[in-house]
């Protein structure tokens, strides 16, 4: 299990480097497919089954198809590899420094709450999803999708609806930006 996590995390990190350093845009896109797939495996291992499915369908499916389609349509030229001058070295040092800093902080400075699900006091008896007796680690047991959906459609219903408005705005913006300015359209 630990070896699996190590391999998945290493593949995610390596392919993320590939996204930034590939000269051809299409290789960047394919590296990003590997990255988002590995991240979805991490979601599954973290008991986020719903997010695992969403990550695969939305990211590895829809978003990456859109990227590859646009790359095939526009056919951008290959870019020169960034030279290893002092700015690149400063950037590499910054990446390493932030990563090590966060890792050391997380290793030494965080205490874990092993108590019950803290959403259990929220809500009334009229809401069936709030009457569950969430025991310790109940959120992370199987049936996680039901728990997420219960919270999403009760406590977080307004933000959920606002995201649909956001998607509508994005669609209108995309249609406006890509419309024909002259000719038949």
């Amino acid at each position, binding site marked *: 299990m630990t070896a699996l996590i190590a391999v998945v995390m290493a593949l995610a990190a390596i392919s993320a480097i590939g996204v930034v350093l590939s000269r051809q845009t299409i290789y960047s896109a394919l590296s990003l497919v590997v990255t988002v797939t590995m991240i979805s495996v991490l979601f599954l291992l973290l008991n986020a089954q719903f997010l695992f499915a969403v*990550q695969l369908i*939305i990211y590895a499916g829809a978003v990456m198809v859109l990227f590859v389609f646009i790359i095939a349509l526009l056919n951008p030229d290959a870019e020169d590899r960034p030279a290893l001058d002092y700015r690149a070295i400063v950037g590499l040092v910054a990446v390493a420094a932030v990563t090590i800093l966060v890792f050391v902080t997380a290793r030494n400075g965080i205490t874990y709450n092993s108590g019950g699900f803290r959403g259990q006091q929220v809500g009334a008896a009229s809401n069936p999803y709030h009457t569950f007796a969430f025991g310790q680690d109940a959120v992370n047991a199987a049936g*996680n999708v039901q728990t997420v959906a219960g919270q999403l459609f009760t406590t977080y219903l307004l933000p959920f609806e606002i995201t649909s408005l956001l*998607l509508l705005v994005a669609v209108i913006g995309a249609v406006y930006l*890509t419309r024909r300015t002259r000719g038949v359209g």
Partner: protein
Amino acid sequence: MISTGVFPYLLGLSAFLFTIGAAGVLIRRNPIVVLMSIELMLNAANIALIAYGRFLNSVEGQIFAFMVIVVAAAEVVVGLALVTAIFRLGRELDVDDLSEMSE
């Protein structure tokens, strides 16, 4: 089940992906790759959110990550529409050339 010992490594991976994405936004000139780097940064944030939700026994992390995915999808749609609009004006696909707003 992942043990809590993995949690620092997950946060480290999240920080690594975020900084790699930020570096990509800064050093790459192709707007499509810049958008992909932004996707990397949003995914890094999602890893942190879901890891925290997992180890604090809360579903809020997953709900937040879901919202982030929706925002990322909307951002990609508008961003790629902008790239297409720039290309249709006959411009080179290079973010260094798109500096009308600063002049």
